[in-house]
């Protein structure tokens, strides 16, 4: 067996070390930025990507000018510096305005930056992947126990400890470093000593972005710069910072080492999915140490000042309901097939977003991986059709059940956590499922997904399927609404408003939150199943970060404080998408800027803002 060969083991260990190095350099920047600013910067992966693109573009020019190691390494450094400056711009323009915002808004705003950067990178560097030059002087492989091993990888292995050493010196031996460490511990006290936090934060962002850029630039001889790098690295960097303890540089180093080795050898244990091993590690570490290896027990985030509040029942609700039913039922009379398809999708996503509202708006549980349940529902239904040949009538409930089961499992883990750790853990859970769907090709079809998932004959065709979707969505939304108004929903809100008070009146907080995950997961699973049959196929992107962010965006667009907000948000986002997407190739730029603008200008969402105006006038 190949695994027993010592030379193979040595080479695997070395490549584990080199990926640990790269990962550490990037994650180190993320953890320092988090430590000081308390913002989990989604855009850190984007800075990494910019570093790679910049280096891959810049260094060949430098090498033309003067070929040699000096030009190469100077180019790496220059790229990192450029990225550092970009980090400063992001801090001054955006982050500075959201330091006090709830963590949900911070995560979404920095994700807005991710979207903006994705389009800008294509505009600036072109749509093709760019393979960088190999490093002069490090082109020949070296011999390790009879196996050839790239010498550049050895240089990378050295780079990690070198960066750790330099960062250590910076943090220990300079005034800036001392202040960064002090601010990581106690920001208010640093201000009381007369230190301008704004400058300190800007400096920190420069350092963090520089390290992200360096991490990216160092990759160019091994992988070509491509547009998928940002989300790939950010997921891993999150794991490293969370496992190491958020804000801890040595923790990040240790976590990167463990994860590098797990990835290198995980392939022997779990050949289909190395990512699963990595995320399982995170799950285990957080289950044992809720604040990571070297993290400090502290409340991070937990600003749940946003959410649904009690309102007087509106008069005439039965009429509104009747009108809605009539409008939904009558829509096929006036709409063509295309409009019906759009309407079907809007309804599905409305249900998806509404199920998330139960967790976030009602429970204050900022789930960043809601796509997990949507995707489980979709895959559950599709797998039932593909492998067991079941009909739609059986497959939909199976999808729902799978999603509820997944939510029960994931929920059992995450209800122990709060704030940013809960967001990270749900994101990780979704990424595990994404990895499984992507890598377990025999069962899930991998990247291509599963095709041929069609509804039963009675429900096929735009009009019947639209009506089926409308009926199921309406029933599910009404049920959820009922739950929100019932004692169960109130108990969730009670735990969100004041955990201490909720406990003191005898509420079992974790139990309620766990049940909320199951209910929300089941509803999202139904939406996922409906989506699978509407499209006839499923693919891993349904489980991806973008799908989770779609749900969050709809929620935010509609308004977290309102019950019908997510429904309006789903409609608005889809309408925007259908209207803007054909007009411009810069759809993501537009969406990203909209998300940022919403966080900064309309944190109460469309429905919330309109309602506030209305009430202010009354």
């Amino acid at each position, binding site marked *: 067996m190949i695994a027993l060969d010592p030379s193979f083991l040595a080479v695997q260990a070395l490549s584990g070390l080199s990926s640990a190095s790269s990962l550490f350099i990037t994650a180190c920047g993320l953890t320092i930025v988090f430590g000081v600013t308390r913002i989990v910067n989604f855009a850190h992966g984007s800075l990494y990507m910019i570093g790679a693109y910049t280096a891959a573009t810049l260094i060949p020019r430098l090498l033309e000018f003067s070929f040699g190691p000096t030009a190469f390494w100077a180019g790496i450094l220059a790229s990192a510096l450029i990225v550092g400056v970009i980090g400063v711009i992001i801090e001054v323009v955006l982050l500075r305005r959201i330091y006090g915002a709830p963590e949900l808004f911070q995560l979404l705003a920095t994700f807005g930056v991710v979207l903006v950067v994705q389009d800008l990178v294509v505009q600036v560097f072109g749509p093709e992947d760019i393979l960088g030059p190999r490093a002069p002087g490090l082109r020949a492989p070296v011999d390790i126990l009879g196996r050839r091993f790239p010498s550049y990888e050895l240089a990378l292995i050295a780079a990690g400890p070198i960066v750790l050493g330099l960062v250590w010196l910076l943090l220990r031996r300079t*005034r800036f470093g*001392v*202040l960064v*460490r*002090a601010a*990581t*511990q*106690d920001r*208010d*006290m*640093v*201000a*009381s*000593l*007369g*230190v*301008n*936090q704004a400058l300190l934060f800007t400096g920190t962002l420069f350092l963090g972005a520089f390290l992200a850029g360096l991490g990216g630039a160092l990759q160019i001889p091994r992988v070509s710069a491509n547009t998928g790098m940002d989300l790939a690295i950010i997921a891993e960097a999150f794991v490293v910072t969370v496992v190491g303890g958020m804000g801890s540089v040595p923790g990040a180093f240790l976590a990167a080492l463990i994860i590098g080795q797990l990835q290198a050898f995980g392939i022997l244990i779990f050949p289909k999915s190395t990512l699963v091993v990595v995320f399982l590690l995170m799950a285990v570490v957080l289950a044992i140490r809720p604040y990571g290896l070297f993290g400090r027990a502290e409340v991070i985030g937990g600003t749940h000042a946003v959410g649904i509040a009690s309102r007087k029942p509106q008069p005439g609700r039965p009429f509104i309901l009747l009108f809605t039913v009539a409008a939904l039922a009558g829509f096929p009379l006036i709409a063509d097939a295309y409009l019906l398809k759009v309407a079907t999708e809007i309804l599905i996503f409305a249900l998806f977003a509404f199920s998330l509202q139960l967790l976030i708006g009602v429970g204050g549980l900022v789930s960043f991986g809601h796509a997990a349940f949507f995707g489980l529902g979709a895959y559950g239904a599709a797998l039932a059709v593909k492998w067991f040949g079941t009909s739609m009538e059986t497959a939909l409930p199976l999808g729902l059940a799978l999603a509820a089961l997944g939510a029960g499992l994931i929920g059992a883990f995450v209800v122990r956590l709060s704030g940013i750790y809960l967001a990270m853990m749900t994101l990780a859970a979704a990424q595990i499922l994404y990895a499984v769907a992507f890598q377990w090709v025999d069962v899930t079809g991998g990247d291509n997904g599963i095709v041929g998932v069609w509804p039963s004959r009675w429900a096929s065709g735009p009009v019947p399927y639209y009506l089926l979707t409308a009926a199921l969505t309406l029933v599910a939304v009404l049920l959820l609404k009922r739950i929100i108004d019932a004692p169960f929903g109130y108990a969730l809100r009670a735990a969100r408003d004041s955990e201490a008070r909720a406990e003191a009146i005898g509420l079992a907080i974790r139990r309620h939150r766990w049940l909320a995950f199951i209910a929300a997961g089941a509803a999202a699973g139904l939406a996922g199943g409906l989506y699978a049959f509407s499209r006839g196929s499923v693919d891993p992107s349904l489980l991806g970060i973008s799908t989770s962010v779609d749900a969050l965006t709809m929620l935010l667009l509609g308004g977290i404080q309102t019950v019908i907000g997510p429904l309006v948000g789903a409609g608005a986002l889809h309408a925007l998408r259908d209207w803007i997407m054909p007009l411009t190739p810069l759809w993501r730029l537009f969406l990203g800027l909209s998300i940022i603008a919403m966080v900064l200008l309309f944190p109460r969402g469309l429905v919330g803002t309109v309602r506030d105006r209305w009430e202010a006038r009354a």
Partner: protein
Amino acid sequence: MRGDVLLDIRNLRAFYGRAQVLFGLSLHLYPGEVVALVGRNGAGKTTTLKAIMGLVSATATHATFKGHSLSKLPTYRIARLGLGYVPEDRRIFTDLTVEENLETGRRTAEAGRSPWTPERLFRLFPNLGEMRGRRGNQMSGGEQQMLSIARTLMGNPDAILLDEPSEGIAPVIVQMMAEAIRAMKAEGVAVLLSEQNWAFAAGISDRACVIERGEMRFQGSMAELMADKALREGTLGG
């Protein structure tokens, strides 16, 4: 002879969330004097100091330091005017060494004054000099208290707000604290001191302000307060 008023606060109100804690306090501080803010636990002493530093939401009809308005200034700008703050719980950076803690407080002195340096501070607090490389989390409460004061002095302030310096520390160190405050006074640093320990406050202060339930009950010389047994027992206990 005592010059212009250094710190002048009028009608200070402070809130924690919607709970009001201070109900219109006024106080002032002249250069080089030591004023004790006394009162029972929970009377609002700590909040007064925090409100002056801009650390809790507060309003005042007038708030100046060295003639500069303090209202709406961020905390770091208030500190840079020359107002130092030593919090009740000391808030040492426990991951940092003694020398690094001092570094966080360092700011250049105004021209014509002999600046505080680590060396000078180690003479004032000899214990600290013996543990320059030690981390904050390995220090006793009294040592942390000295470090907290020394750290603030590194900013060469004109006045220090000192919150409960004698709380929870050994009597010997309380004695050293008193000497340190006298040394600061000798350097021309004014001190506004919140204190529950009567003996300590009486031994070092020129004036006293008595706070009760967020309102000022008495302002006057320490001697006056000492003489007025009824006032003392009425507001401070017994």
